[in-house]
C-alpha cells in the first residue's frame, strides 16, 4: 500500500467518523501540520456532503444566537483589529486608517510593538492578544514570541490594591481547567516564559483571561477571584 493510499483511507475513515478516539485525536493533531492529509480530508468532506441532504433541519433553541453573539463580542475588537492589520498591510500604509475606537487600540498596540523590538531581532512571527472587558477599552496587551517561547504582558490600567494581584490564565476547550501563566507585574512590563510543550495552534485557539487574586496568586491553582478580562491572540507581524 502506498503512502497516498494510506492518507486517503485515513482521511476517508476520519470523515465518515468511525476512527476510534485515539486515532481520531491523532488525525486532529496531524492535519494541522500535514497539508496533504488536510486536503484529503476536505476532498472526502466534499464527496460525502450530499448525504447531509438527508438530514431534516431542526430549529435550534431560542436564544442560541444571543449566546453566540455575546461570546463573539468578547473577541470582536481583536478580530477586527486583525482584519484592520490585514487591510493596512495590503495598502502598505501601516496604522493610518484607524478610525473611531480602533484608533486607541491601534495606537496602544503600535506603541507596544515598538517596545518589542529588543525581543524580536529575527522578526519571527509575533502574536498579540488585547485582553479586555466586553467592548471596553483594553486592559492588558500581551505579545507572544513563538520562537523564543516568551510572552510579554503590559497592563494599561491602574495596578490592583497591594493585597491583590492580577493573574494570567490560558483557557482551552480541550483542558479541564485553566492553566496559570503567572502573575502580572504591577508596575512594569514583564517577560514570562511559555510552556514549550504547548503547540502554537493551541495558543491560537485559546482564550487568555485575567482574574483578580489575593497577593501571590490563586492559592488553589484555578481562578478564585473574578475573571475580569479576556482576549484571544492574533498574529501581529508577518
Amino acid at each position: 500500500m502506498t503512502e497516498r493510499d494510506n492518507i486517503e483511507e485515513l482521511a476517508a475513515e476520519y470523515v465518515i467518523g468511525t476512527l476510534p478516539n485515539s486515532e481520531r485525536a491523532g488525525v486532529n493533531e496531524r492535519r494541522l501540520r500535514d497539508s496533504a492529509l488536510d486536503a484529503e480530508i476536505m476532498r472526502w468532506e466534499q464527496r460525502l456532503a450530499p448525504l447531509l441532504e438527508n438530514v431534516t433541519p431542526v430549529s435550534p433553541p431560542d436564544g442560541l444566537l444571543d449566546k453566540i453573539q455575546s461570546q463573539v463580542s468578547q473577541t470582536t475588537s481583536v478580530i477586527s483589529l486583525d482584519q484592520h492589520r490585514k487591510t493596512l498591510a495590503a495598502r502598505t500604509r501601516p496604522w493610518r486608517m484607524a478610525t473611531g475606537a480602533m484608533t486607541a487600540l491601534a495606537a496602544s498596540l503600535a506603541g507596544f510593538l515598538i517596545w518589542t523590538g529588543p525581543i524580536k531581532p529575527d522578526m519571527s512571527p509575533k502574536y498579540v492578544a488585547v485582553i479586555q472587558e466586553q467592548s471596553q477599552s483594553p486592559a492588558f496587551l500581551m505579545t507572544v514570541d513563538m520562537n523564543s517561547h516568551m510572552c510579554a504582558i503590559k497592563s494599561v490600567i491602574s495596578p490592583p490594591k497591594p493585597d491583590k494581584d492580577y493573574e494570567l490564565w490560558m483557557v482551552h476547550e480541550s483542558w479541564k481547567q485553566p492553566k496559570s501563566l503567572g502573575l502580572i507585574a504591577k508596575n512594569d512590563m514583564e517577560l514570562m516564559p511559555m510552556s514549550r510543550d504547548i503547540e502554537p495552534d493551541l495558543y491560537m485557539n485559546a482564550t487568555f483571561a485575567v482574574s483578580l487574586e489575593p497577593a501571590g496568586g490563586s492559592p488553589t491553582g484555578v481562578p478564585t477571584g473574578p475573571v475580569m478580562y479576556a482576549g484571544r491572540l492574533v498574529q501581529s507581524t508577518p
Partner: protein
Amino acid sequence: MPSKDPILSALLARVAQGDADAFSDLYTASSSKLFAVALRILRNREQAEEVVQEAYVKIWNHAGDFKPDIAAPITWMAAIVRNRSLDEVRRKAGKIFVDDGALDNLESDDESAVTLLERQDDIAKLNKCLEGLETEKRKMVCLAYLDGMSREDLAHKFGKPEGTVKTWLRRSLMQLKGCLEQ
C-alpha cells in the same frame, strides 16, 4: 464543483470582514441544518446546542479561511459541526449506541437516502453510487456518516465483527470514490 450557494458564500465573505449583520443572517440561513446535523450524531439537545454554539464562534473567527473554490459553504460549516460532534461521541469510549425512541424518526434509513433523487447533480450522483453498494454496506456508510455510529455500534447492529465493519467501510468508501470519479 463547490460553492453552489452564492448567498451563503457572500455572507461568509462579509462575516470574514467582521460584519455582525451578515453573521446573524448566516445563522438564520444555516443554524437549523447545523443543529440537526449535531443532534443526529449526539442525540442530546444540550450537547448539540453547545457544539453548534462553539461552531458558530469558530465560523466567526475563521470565516476568512473559507475557500469557495474548495468547498461549498454549507459543507465547510457542517464539517466544523460534524468534527466537533464526532470528537464528542468518540471520546465516550465504549459507549454502545442506544436507540432513543424520541429520535427514531431522525435515523437514516435507506428510504430517505433513495427518495432524494435528482434534486442536485452531486446528490443524484452520490445516491447513484450508493445504490451500487450492497444494502448492508450502504446502510453502514449512512449510519456512520449521518448518525455518528462507531465501528463498535455498527458491529453490534449488524452482528459482524468490528474488523469486518472496518474492512467493509474502507472498501465501500473507495468504491464510492471510484464511482464518483467516473
